[in-house]
């Protein structure tokens, strides 16, 4: 039953996400919450690990979630689920490619989908921000806690680095070091 749920969920994610890995976060989060696979923190950690390992983000996340919820078989099934819709759709399109490329209907659909993807990545940003900065809800004591300001500062610095095109792995390594320093320094 767990395996069938995994397969269906990842088929759905594979069939309905456009624009690559980050657009997928919102949907994986919704499914993970719904099925009780992972906590919000674990999901964010998975995104980081997927960024620091080779291969497509979406495949990495599928393998992770599958492994965590259903062992090796779960990992195989979740990965198959995320790959299969792409695979089948591309096989169909490759045959009719010239027609597909010039199709005005596809152009019209894409003009609605592209901004929708931007909105969904925005939604992923908001939910991850909530996890990072307000893990136990918003309250006044938060703004007097040193850890809140350290992580806000770290977010500001890593944002600048990301926009300077510093490689994501270097950014992740740096933030890991800062996290360890802050953790021991503040005795969290």
């Amino acid at each position, binding site marked *: 039953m767990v395996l069938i749920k995994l397969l269906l969920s990842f088929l759905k994610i594979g069939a309905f996400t*456009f624009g*690559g890995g980050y657009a997928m976060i919102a949907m994986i989060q919704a499914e993970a919450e719904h099925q009780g696979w992972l906590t919000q923190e674990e999901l964010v950690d998975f995104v980081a690990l997927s960024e620091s390992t080779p291969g497509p983000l979406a495949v990495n996340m599928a393998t992770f979630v599958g492994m965590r919820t259903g062992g090796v078989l779960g990992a195989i099934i979740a990965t198959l689920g995320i790959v299969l819709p792409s695979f089948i*759709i591309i096989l169909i399109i490759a045959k009719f490619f010239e027609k597909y490329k010039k199709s005005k209907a596809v152009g019209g659909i894409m003009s609605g989908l592209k901004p929708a993807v931007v909105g969904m990545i925005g939604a992923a940003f908001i939910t991850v921000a909530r996890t990072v900065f307000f893990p136990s809800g918003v309250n006044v004591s938060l703004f007097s806690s040193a850890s809140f300001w350290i992580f806000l500062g770290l977010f500001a610095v890593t944002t600048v680095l990301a926009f300077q095109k510093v490689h*994501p792995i270097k950014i992740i390594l740096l933030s890991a070091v800062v996290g360890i320093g802050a953790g021991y320094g503040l005795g969290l």
Partner: protein
Amino acid sequence: MNKNLDLFLTFMKIGAFTFGGGYAMIPLIQKEVCENKKWLDEKDISDIVAISESTPGPIAINAATFVGYKTAGFSGACMATLGVVLPSFLIISLISLILTQFQSIRAVRYAFMGIRAAVLALILKALWMMFNQVKKKKKPFSYAIIGLSLVLTAFLEIDAVFVIIGCGLFGLIWSLLKRKEQSNGAD
């Protein structure tokens, strides 16, 4: 060498050496598939990008399946797709086994607290890049959809599937209406 095996090995190499997925993979595919193996020409690469953007699923999978199919038909598509997935699959399976053992270590927990802030920065950058792509067209219609899909997924927790279908349909209808308007104007 057998073409299917060659496709498998080439895409395994691509899968094992690209970080950050999709778009980072395109230059590598171009180098291997066009320059080294001469399976496809440069024009095909821009087709691959266009097709991957307008179809669902991971860009890397779309690209591997497409190249495999063009080069060696159905079996080529299978081998290329399997090749690009396999390194990720093996590496992640290994890591998730190790991770469970390491999560109880305090330093690892602290490290991830820092890393979460960095992930937020990486998402912000992806958001900015996608937003710029949409902004180029300068349509108020696009901004409305951005706002709508943001509110629906983040605050109202509407299933993303419905948001995607709805926005795709909306784009289709909008473009049909516009075309009608234009052809009426021409009369």
